[in-house]
């Protein structure tokens, strides 16, 4: 798929899955989408390996926008992007946006074939400057 992919990273698998569910129902299937959440042991948390896997799943040559919730999700996403390394890392952006609204808005933009820069800009508009 040539549309920008969306990855949702939450501390809670329920939040991540629910957000992905909203994207699918509100935006449709035209956007590569993956989510991950939880520490892998049934508790809250985020996990670098799972994030790397989600990026692989949602990978698009047009790039991937990641939506995160709290601090650790951002730190772990940054680590995942770094470990994936170039050249793919240059096409992955972690958005500064609320996770649910950001995911839906970014996916909406992506579904129309927008560039990664445009997708990220749309998500960022949701954050107070």
């Amino acid at each position, binding site marked *: 798929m040539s549309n920008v992919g969306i990855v949702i990273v939450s501390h809670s698998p329920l939040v991540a899955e629910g957000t992905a569910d909203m994207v699918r129902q509100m935006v449709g299937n035209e956007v590569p989408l993956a989510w991950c959440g939880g*520490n892998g042991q049934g508790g809250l948390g*985020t*996990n*670098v390996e799972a994030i790397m896997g989600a990026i692989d799943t949602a990978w698009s040559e047009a790039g991937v926008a990641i939506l995160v919730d709290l601090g650790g999700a951002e*730190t772990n996403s940054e*680590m995942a992007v770094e*470990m994936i390394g170039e050249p793919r890392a240059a096409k992955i952006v972690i958005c500064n946006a609320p996770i649910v609204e950001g995911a839906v808005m970014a996916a909406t933009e992506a579904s129309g074939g927008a560039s990664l820069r445009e997708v990220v800009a749309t998500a960022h508009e949701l954050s107070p400057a």
Partner: protein
Amino acid sequence: MSAETMTQIDLKALITAVADTVAAHAEELTALDQAIGDGDHGLNMKRGFEAVRADADQIAAKPLPEALKAIGTKLVMTVGGASGPLFGTLFMALGKELPAEPDTGGFATAFGKAIEAVAARGKSQLGQKTMLDVLYPVQAAMVAGTSGVEIAIAADAAAEKTVPMKASRGRASFLGDRSIGHMDPGARSVALLVRAVVETVGEDA
């Protein structure tokens, strides 16, 4: 530590000592984290260092910089939480910055750069009640040529100093003033790692 002793470090013994220490203090670290975090730090650190221990033979066969990178990668993948990337970055960056045959000065310089990498990863700085509050004083002691035992004492003292601090980074920062009066679990972990390392490498380290 001379260049000679540095390249002769028994990495497997070091990994064993560090993993033993983390395992022995897992409950204490978890208790500290229950006070101001999400209460999984001890368990997470133990899982990470047990995974490193499981690969000890393989890791110890590598040159020191490569071994440190392998330890860091393993920690990133297994510790989880925010501690995984932070402790993982410390080891990965140290491996990256370390010259092939480091002497004491070279090690201290590389350690300093690794701490900067951790600070960048955590978007944090000194005085925010984090692992950095132990890492920086330990590095300063290294640069000053302090003995291993004194470095470990400095690390313990630095961890103790996080007790009255108010957290302004990480999960503990959500607590605001209520974070005051508890030692930071990440700071305590660093102090424990430092002590395990200097006790294994020897008093002249």
